[in-house]
């Protein structure tokens, strides 16, 4: 039939299209028009049915079932094609090294318990709970609990794997190939340099960070463009001031004074260490003796030194026991030793 060849039939959509039909005189009344449409429609439906019922069918309880051919009319997709998942770090490595996946048995012989057990999961082979004795090795550090160590190591391995997983997911998210049920949610922003992630960043902390960031240029943020409404940095860092080293009047002397001040401060703080006690004692004694010599006249130095040394010892005696007393001059230190 000539007319049927002109029809476009798409069995995939059960669609028929007659691109040549036109109402030569448009029917005057609505009813006529509708009837004409229905008549034409019936024709087209019949054309679809002709092809449909000639398709090979399989009998079912509910009726004959035919397999529809794929539709020829292209319609746009609803969503983009699923993107292929990028290979994980391990997969890349395995490919480079030519490592192939090998199938492992689900069930493994467990020597600890003498039974077949699952490789992974609950009640698995070599479970921590099942290991009653761990043999000592030469490398073992005394005082370390090997069981705790085992648990610790396992925990570390799990954590590492979790970290790897996250990084692989991030890589997948970049190309938009995340598994449909996984979402990567951003938590609080870490401040550079801090290891721990702050739970919630306070306003003050944010201000501090903003201040640090705004002054982190060569010019200390002096020539940066300010955003409208941006406040000056909260915390300005103190900058060192260098004084001229060359001596002269006014400012020249300040450098020397500054360094001297620093030196004096250090000296005063550590003066007790710098004092040579032996020398100080002898100097003191010599001075005293000179004084006495001036008062008394002549006497031997060696005989005069001994009684002079005694009062010093006697000074410390009440706090010290005779056996150990000698070295220490500090009261508090010695007290702590024997209490």
């Amino acid at each position, binding site marked *: 039939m000539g007319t049927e060849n002109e029809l476009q039939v798409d069995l995939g959509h059960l669609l028929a299209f*007659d691109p040549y*039909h036109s109402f030569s005189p*448009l029917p005057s009344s609505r009813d006529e028009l509708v009837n004409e449409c*229905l008549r034409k*429609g019936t024709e087209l439906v019949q054309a679809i049915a002709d092809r449909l019922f*000639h398709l090979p069918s399989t009998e079912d309880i509910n009726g004959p079932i035919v397999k*529809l051919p794929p539709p020829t009319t292209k319609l746009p997709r609803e969503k983009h094609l699923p993107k292929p998942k990028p290979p994980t770090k391990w997969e890349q490595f395995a490919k480079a090294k030519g490592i192939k996946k090998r199938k492992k048995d689900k069930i493994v012989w467990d020597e600890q318990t003498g039974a077949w057990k699952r490789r992974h999961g609950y009640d698995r082979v070599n479970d921590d709970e099942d290991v009653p004795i761990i043999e000592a090795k030469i490398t073992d550090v005394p005082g370390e609990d090997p069981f705790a160590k085992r648990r610790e190591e396992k925990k570390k391995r799990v954590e590492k794997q979790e970290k790897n997983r996250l990084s692989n997911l991030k890589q997948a998210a970049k190309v938009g190939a995340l598994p449909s049920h996984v979402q990567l*949610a951003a938590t609080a922003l870490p401040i550079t340099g801090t290891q721990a992630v702050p739970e919630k960043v306070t306003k003050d902390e944010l201000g501090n960070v903003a201040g640090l960031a705004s002054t982190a240029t060569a010019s200390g943020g002096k020539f940066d463009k300010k955003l409208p409404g941006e406040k000056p940095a909260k915390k300005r860092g103190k900058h060192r001031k260098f004084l001229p080293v060359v001596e002269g009047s006014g400012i020249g002397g300040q450098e020397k004074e500054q360094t001297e001040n620093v030196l004096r401060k250090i000296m005063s703080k550590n003066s007790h260490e710098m004092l040579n006690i032996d020398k100080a004692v002898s100097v003191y004694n010599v001075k005293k003796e000179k004084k006495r010599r001036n008062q008394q006249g002549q006497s031997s130095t060696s005989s005069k030194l001994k009684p002079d040394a005694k009062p010093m010892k006697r000074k410390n005696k009440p706090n010290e026991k005779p056996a150990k007393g000698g070295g220490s001059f500090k009261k508090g230190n010695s007290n702590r030793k024997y209490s």
Partner: protein
Amino acid sequence: MLKVKTPKKGRVKRELEKRAPKLVETGKKTLILQGTKTSNVLNSVLTDIYHLKRESALRFTRKNDNIRPFESRGETSLEFFSQKTDCSIFVYGSTSKKRPDNLVIGRTYDHHIYDLVEVGVENFKPIGSFKYDKKLSPQPGSKAFITFIGEGFEIVDKLKHLKEVLLDLLRGEVVENLNLAGIDRAYTCTAVSTNRVLFTHCALRLKKSGTIVPKMELVEVGPSMDLVMRRHRLPNEILRKEAMKTAKDQLKKKIKNVRDDAIEGTKGRIYIPDQKIGKVALPNKTKGLKRERREAKMKREKSERPAKKQKETSA
């Protein structure tokens, strides 16, 4: 810092998986909604369209401010709804002095407006106004025949676009296998003039014709209306190319334990677990039997067994 978020419940996970992009898509969901002002006619048009597509449609009954699909910024909330409800076709009704009984049918790609067609509704006859044998009324969700009649759909660009959108709206779920007993409806769209399309929904009556192919008869069941083309917006060419991509050569998934044999046809292999014959309750071990007799019998059997073995060895 990033954190992996996964659904806590399996149901949520399955729902998310349903919404994920698929290699082969099975059908689009339709969102039916209205603007701030609608007429009685338009309300019943929308309810009737919802009735036709009940299986795969969502009807929003509240007024929606700030939806103006053709204007810039007017599609934001539409796109949001599309995202939220996972619908990729929308039918938006609104009425105004300039465009009375206005229906905007649009499609989205990746939850962004793909194309738009605006039609005015005239001569609307709702489902309720048709009298017909209720036995014929189509089952919800059944696959429909779609017919387009008239050269307008080929020549006029606007109508060509409308045809594509209508096909997408009416085709329903994409199926591979069709039950021939289940075909019961047909849509006919006739291009009456260059900007007017007559749309009707009919039930099918299958009559015996003496051949395999039954004689088809259309019974109008409604709704029926005239669609007058107004504005339309074709998809962006780049976007269209992107959206028309299909999975070309998808690998056929290997079915385990099934092989095709040239002579014997499809052959399947099934696994039957080991029959533990030793543990099977034997009829002669029933409880009803007295213990003494049972024991005696077992003893007899035991004594008989070695004799049998000897026989075997000698033979």
